[in-house]
Each structure stands twice: as structure tokens, then as C-alpha cells.
């Protein structure tokens, strides 16, 4: 197996980015749940469901392209 075939796929890094961002955004959404930011449609609590979506996608990418699969 060549050295380059052991490169961690870019999709894993995409997963890490989404996972970390998802947790940060979900966390901030939950923290401001009772007094949301002064933005239009803040009643929809977009940070909560958008953060949740990012965590879901990030988790799937991290698991599917985990580095241990390519060693």
C-alpha cells in the first residue's frame, strides 16, 4: 500500500469541522433559549436545529471516514 493511500480523507476533516461547529452553535442556541438574540425570526431558534444538523452530519462524516479505516 502506498504512503498516499494512507492520507486521512478530506471528508474526515469536514466531519471534524461540522462536529465542533455544531456543538458550539447548539450550545449557544440552548444558552440563549429563554432570551434569544435580537434577530428576525429568533423565535424559530435556528442555532438549535442548525447546530443539531451540523452535529449529525459531522458525526456521520467522522465515523464513515475515521482515520483507523485507512491505516
Amino acid at each position, binding site marked *: 500500500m502506498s504512503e498516499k493511500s494512507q492520507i486521512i480523507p*478530506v471528508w474526515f*476533516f469536514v466531519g471534524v*469541522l461540522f462536529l465542533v461547529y455544531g456543538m458550539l*452553535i447548539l450550545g*449557544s442556541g440552548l444558552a440563549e433559549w429563554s432570551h434569544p438574540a435580537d*434577530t*428576525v*425570526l429568533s423565535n424559530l431558534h*435556528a442555532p438549535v436545529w442548525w*447546530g443539531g444538523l451540523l452535529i449529525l452530519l459531522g458525526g456521520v462524516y467522522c465515523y464513515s471516514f475515521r482515520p483507523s479505516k485507512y491505516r
Partner: protein
Amino acid sequence: MTLLFAAAESTRLVRLSGIDLVIIAFYFVLVLAIGFYLKRFAKTGEDFFLAGREMTAWVAGLAFVSANLGSLELLGWAGSAYQYGILAVHWYWIGAIPAMIFLGLVMMPFYYISKTHSVPGYLQLRYGSAASGLSAVTFAIMTILMSGVNMYAMAVVMKVVLGWNLNFSIWVSSLTVGIYVAAGGLFSAIFNEVLQFFLIWFGALLIPILGLYETGGWHGMVARIQQNFPGQDYTHAWTGLGHFQSNPMGIHWTGIVFGLGAVQAMGYWTTDFLVVQRVLSSKDIRSAKMAPIIGSFFKMAVPIIVILPGLLGLAVLPMHLVPASEVHAGQYSYNEVLPLMLARYCGPGLLGLGITALVAGFMAGMAGNVSAFATVWTYDIYRPFLRRRAADSHYVSMGRWCTIIGLFISIGTAYLAMGFASIMDYVQALFGFFIAPLFGTVLLGMMWKRVTKAAGFWGLLCGTLASVTIFTLMKIDHRWVGVFALSPDAKGLAQDMYQALWSCVTCLVITVLVTMVTKPRPDEELRGLVYSLTEVAQEEHTTVFHRPLLWGIVALLVLVGLQIIFW
């Protein structure tokens, strides 16, 4: 682009919270970590300059689109959508999709089979040193100038939107790009471009989602636009293009179809090495053909995060935006529509994500510029003209140094642009001078084996000179606009389209004429370089669903469907 400078005078639009800053900081840490991780894999010239030709069609396709998806593109076209309405979408659909499919199905096999490192490298094989040298030098200069000018424009945006110091924005973001590209070469640039592609989408996608929710869908948005701007048509892509006067852009459909679609976009997407380099990194010829076609589907969707926010701005923003040159205290320019929409819907966390998307877009564009510059300098200028025979490791080292040096020249250009704001528009126009004639030269070279070395060089040179001359004449005397752009009502973008068209026509005519009076090269020298002497694999052993031709046709059908829907 000059508009962005004037915008610097207005006050900051948004204020970031702690969580937003953490999100931005994490992005910088991650891209640097990826650069250092990939450094160990970028050992040979092939690794550093072409990512080892190991990329899958998906990765190469996303990087191909992402290298073009800079933040100025996002901000500028969102602003254009606010100013001109849905007409701006032509620069994504007519102005990209046919060219991407053409690149994948027709031109990519020649680039790939010839094993060239770059577009000037193909010209070297097909036409020899004169045409290749001319193309390489102009590309290197323009790439580095554009990189610096874009860097400064982005720093201005960061100042306007966030109140950041110009020097801070320029140095932090450009040094980050320089470090990760110098470390991992094209590997690193492509990895980060894919990352940035997702970031841009997920950072900006909430704006159209929440915007359409607020307006009650597309029809609600159209109704609100008509209410806010009575008597103006912002939501039909073709109906106003019958006359120069009947649309806000001052453009005729011939300019869109022939100038934009057939020449300028074809030239950009098929011969601008910045984007073609990403596809050359593909692992095999089928991937190289599929990459631009995969990219075309994503490109078709980009208006969702760029054009739609501009249209939604027309519908929901309480104030009317104005040209940057007319901004007074308390007013906002067209170019600020995307940050305004971001601030409208996104609180802490989401705002950080959106701003990171803008920064990522800038860095993707810059990484594209410096990696393309390093390749063209090393392989098309340094190796053939300065040091012909050296070890592969020497050229890799040159590529790394060149990345850093190119970056510092870009920073210098950025500061130069500060002193000469109007120079930016001219530099951008200058960049366009070389693309349209280059397309004529490359296309004729691939399709017609009779074309000679001298014809390639003189066609390229005369096409470029024609472009410069037309541009200059139209700038110094408006009467020339009526001659070259077919109507005195043609505005800036329309003039660009006709300038591209005439320069390409000049290139083609001169190339054909010189070919007729010069001696052709023997067939043996042209195998693998021209259509009639090259056997291109037809993917007979793959299933029909893996064939580029099928997906190219599907992309074209979707494109036609979109034109009908938004006619």
C-alpha cells in the same frame, strides 16, 4: 470592486460575540493543522504541484468550484442580484455550466493525456516556447496582482462588516494561506478548498431558508419585491433581454449568449489555470472528465446562497441600498446586502459561522492564486527559461519559496491598491484581457492539427492586443461603446462581454490566417495533443451511470429546465 473601497467609510455592520470568535479561531487552527499534516505527503514535484494526481472526481470537482467561490464573489454577486435582480444568475448558469461540461467532455482529455502540469505547459507542447512563455508570464503577473487586489478588497470588507483593522486582516489571513500552501502544496490547497466549500454552504444557507420562510416562499418574495420596487422586473432572467434599454444591466441577449457564454466563460473555465489545475490533480482520465461535470451541478446551486439572498434583500430589508459611490451616513451599499442579511437572521454562533464562511471564501480564492502562481512560475518560466535541468527536489523547493514570495508580492500589491483605489477595476479588466484570446488559441490548437507554432503565438498576441485596444478606446471615448458593444446604452458588464467576444474573434482570425502561410508540424509531434491524432478512452468498461457523457447531458437538461422556470 471600487465600490468596496467607498463602502469602507460606513460604520461596522455587526458585532461578534465570544462564541463567534472561537468559531473563527478554530477554523484557522484546523486549516493550519491540515497543512502541516499534509506536508509529509508532498515530497515530489507531482505531489506538490498536482497533488500526486491522486484526487477523486468528487474532491477535484469540489475544489474546482471552490477555487472560484471567493468571498468577493459571494458579496459582489449578492450585491449585483440586489442591483440587477435575477439577471445576475446568468453569470452562474450561462456563464459557467456549458463551459464546465465542455471542459470535462472535450478539453480535459487533451490536458490530461499530454501529462502537462499547466495550461501554459500545454501551449509549450502544442505551440512551443513563444506562445507558452507569453501565456505564462501574463498569467503569473495577473494572478499575483489579482491576489493582492482581492486581499485588500477582503480586508476592506472585514473593516466594514466587523470593524477589523486592515493590516490585521491582510496579514493574518494571507500568512495562514501562505503557510498551509507552502507546507502541503496543491494537496493542502485542495483539502482546504473542499473544507471551505462546505463551510461556505452551511454558513450562508440559513439566509435563503429563513428569508423564504419570512416572505412566505418564492411567490411571497416576488410580491414583496413588486411592492417595494413597483414597475421594475427583478425576477425574470430572459424577458427583458430583447433590448439594451429594457433591463437594468443594459445588456442584450447576444452579449449574454455569445460574449459571456461562448467566449468569456468558456475562456475562464477551460483555460484559466487557477481552476484547471484542480482538475489536473484527478487520479485518472475518467475522474478528470467527471470532476468539472460534478462541479457544474454544485455551481448551478450556488445562486441559492448568492443570488437568492440579494433578491430577498429587495423583499425584506427596510432600507433601500444604493451604489457605493452614493452612500451617505446611515445608508448601505449594494455590496453589503449579504452581511446585512446575515445580521438580520443570525445571532451569536451562526453569525460566527457566516463570517467564517466569508473568510474561508477569501482564503480559498487566495490559495488558488498562490498555488497556481507557484506552478506556472516553477514549471513554465523558471524551468524552461532559467534552469532547465535540476533535480525534482529543487523544483519542489522552488515551488515552496515561490508560494511565500508570491504571497509577499500579493501583500505588497494589496498595499499598492490602497493608494490607487481605481486601479482595482483596471487590474480586473486586465485579467480579462488574456482569458478570451487564450481560449481561442487553446481551442484551435486542440481541434485543428494544421495550426502552426507561429500562428498560435501571433493569434494569442493579436487577440490580447485587440482586447486591450477595445477596452482603452471604450474608456477614453464613449462613442466607441456603440461600435464595439453594439449600443451606446451598454453598461460595464455588457462592454466586457463584447470586448471578450471581439478579442477571441481576432485571435481566431489571425491564427487561421498565419496558419495558411506557415508550415504545419508533422503529425508525429502532435499525437496526444490534437483531436484527430488522439485516442481518447470512451469508458466502455464502466456502467452507463459512471460515464461523464451521461452526467454532462443531465447537467445540460437541468440547465435548460432552470432557464424555462426563471424565463
